[in-house]
């Protein structure tokens, strides 16, 4: 059981897009809201995560109705937001709240299962909380645990495997054929939205020579600028004349234009005197390349249907990873709760150390007043080390006993009873 941790928020499972739009906050507003809520004093820690699909608030408070308090305080900063009882808001507390953040960070709760952007967004929310000093020890540890769990889920399971958009599916095909595109040519025929998306995904892998061929030079130049801004890669722009020769020089050709389809003979012409394979990604409807061209030696042809099959396959494969990811999250959550239990011993330990320090300081008064400063300093050092060493082993055992629930080890309660300590009070 985790006491004092609450989560409220909206996401794509409970709220329609217009509600999510309304409550979504940019980084600056998020920082302002958490600072204002923290300043109200009822919550010791506050963090706000806002993405296109979810806006979530995590608070730590001693109040029993923390979720309602958090929701009320948050909605005061969101004019026009639906009422707390509208049914759009998710409320969790304790373990449920902690597990929810772990699930969100790993991508289990994302609209696209296993998507990776959420990891960066959670990291940004954590950093924002640290910058505004609204994140304390519990949320700090929880976010660290969530980020580690997210990283493990992506590396140790197949949760983020394969491409789940046309662009990323095209990029995953490229990776199956070429180790790198750094010294190779990528040709984009067409400058529409779908071509741009695929071109961006492929250019991110790397492209030695990037060429955009389009009927309208202005649109091709706009796409080239967009690619330069998104991937830092310069693209050459040209018309559709002599397209076969241009395809013949490329290693990856992304085709998304309504021009007359390329026949098998055209592709065979383009493949003449080539040394390396050619990947044709046909995003056109109707198709830009005759389906039979896939039989040409060294040609790999992927049309929209093939890419969509890949997306479906990747999603199915990601779904298969869910049990493994959930097991991994349970491990991480156990680690977090163990830490939290250990942290429960801190007030008693602080009292013990304060008590020992007060005794040490009292005994120091017996030192003769005319003792030389060096002697005084040496005795100070000696007594401090003595206290630390005497309490060191007991401290470690109590932390271990409290966090592990091992009945053979002393707990914070045993410590209090043994020394007659009261939390936050030294004798």
């Amino acid at each position, binding site marked *: 059981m985790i006491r004092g941790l609450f989560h409220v928020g909206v996401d794509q499972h409970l709220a329609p897009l217009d509600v999510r739009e309304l409550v979504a906050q940019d980084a600056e507003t998020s920082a302002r809201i958490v600072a204002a809520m923290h300043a109200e004093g009822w919550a010791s820690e506050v963090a706000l995560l806002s993405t296109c699909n979810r806006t979530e608030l995590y608070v730590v408070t001693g109040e029993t109705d923390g979720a309602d308090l958090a929701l009320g305080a948050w909605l005061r900063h969101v004019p026009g937001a639906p009422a707390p009882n509208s049914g759009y808001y998710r409320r969790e507390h304790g373990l449920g709240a902690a597990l929810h953040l772990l699930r969100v960070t790993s991508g289990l709760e994302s609209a696209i299962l296993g998507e990776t952007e959420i990891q960066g967004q959670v990291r940004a929310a954590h950093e924002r909380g640290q910058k505004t000093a609204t994140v304390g020890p519990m949320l700090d540890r929880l976010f660290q645990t969530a980020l580690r769990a997210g990283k493990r889920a992506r590396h140790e399971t197949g949760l983020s495997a394969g491409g789940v958009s046309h662009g990323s599916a095209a990029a995953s095909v490229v990776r*199956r054929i070429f180790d790198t595109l750094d010294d190779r040519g990528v040709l984009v025929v067409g400058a529409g939205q779908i071509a741009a998306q695929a071109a961006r995904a492929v250019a991110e892998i790397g492209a030695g020579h990037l060429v955009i061929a389009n009927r309208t030079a202005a649109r091709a130049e706009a796409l080239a600028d967009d690619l330069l801004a998104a991937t830092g890669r310069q693209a050459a722009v040209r018309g559709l004349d002599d397209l076969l020769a241009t395809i013949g020089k490329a290693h990856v050709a992304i085709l998304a234009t309504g021009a007359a389809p390329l026949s098998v003979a055209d592709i065979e012409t383009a493949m003449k005197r080539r*040394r390396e394979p050619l990947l044709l990604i046909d995003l056109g409807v109707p198709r830009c390349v005759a389906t039979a061209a896939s039989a040409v030696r060294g040609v790999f042809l992927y049309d929209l249907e093939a890419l969509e099959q890949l997306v479906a396959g990747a999603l199915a494969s990601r779904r298969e990873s869910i049990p493994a990811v959930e097991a991994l999250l349970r491990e991480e959550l156990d680690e977090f709760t163990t830490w939290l239990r250990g942290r429960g011993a801190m007030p008693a330990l602080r009292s013990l150390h304060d008590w020992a320090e007060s005794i040490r300081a009292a005994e120091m008064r017996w030192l003769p007043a005319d003792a030389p400063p060096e002697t005084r300093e040496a005795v100070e050092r000696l007594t401090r080390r003595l206290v630390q060493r005497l309490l060191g082993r007991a401290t470690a055992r109590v932390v271990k006993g409290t966090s592990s629930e091992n009945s053979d080890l002393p707990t914070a309660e045993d410590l209090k009873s043994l020394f007659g300590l009261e939390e936050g009070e030294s004798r």
Partner: protein
Amino acid sequence: MARAVALTMVPMGVSLLVLVVAFYAAVATGYLEARRHREPSPTWARIAGPLSVAAHLLGLILLSAATARSPFTTVSQSLSFLAFSLAALYLLLEATSRVATHGGGFYALAALLAALSVPGLVQGEPMAWADAPRSVPRSLHIGLSLMSTAAVLAGGLLALGYLGAYARVKRHRLAGGAHGPSLDGFQRLLRRASLLGIVLLTPALVLGFRAYGSGAAAGKLPLLTAMIGALLVLLIGAFILWWRRPLRGPLAAWLNLLAVVVLVIGFGIVHPLVLRGGL
């Protein structure tokens, strides 16, 4: 005293050579299971693999030191040395590429070869050249031949991997999860394996002529030369295609597989000669 030490080293060496069969089989199972589940190869298998190869090397060294002969003086020892060469070559490949997803095949073949060597090793198979005077060219010839055999077998396994990957990409059957080297990666690995086969086989051929040119096996030499010549031609052809014409990858892969077939036929000719002491 030295003889007593040598006598205890023989069973130790043989025990290790027998034990590695189980090690290789376990590692192969780990790799193959991971591949079946489209997961990265397990860490324990990636650690146990090199340890098994190290244990195998130690076994060969102990045996060689005890007998004061090369570790391939019998057919069984040669098979064990071949298994070791294949596993060691795989370690080199794994360290320099994403071939780990195909490690199961390498370790399984190494386990099979090492297992085939067990009966002879345990029963104390007589040395094929026990009565023959020691000959450096012959030892070098056999060692290089076995290592080039490992390179040809590695080429065959990689060629199978390439053909599978090629067919999957061509037919749009790309499953998620760990997928091993790209076609590009396979091409580079196969180029290296083919080149290694050529580099090891050429001196092996020359040394073979020197060692057996006038011996009892001289009668079989034209046939053996033709086999090794065919093997070399296939490897050179594959290497050139992998290097200069990656577009013809499937053809090059078939050349690598044909090389394995020629190798097996060649073994069918050499093996009876070895058993009769003709080589």
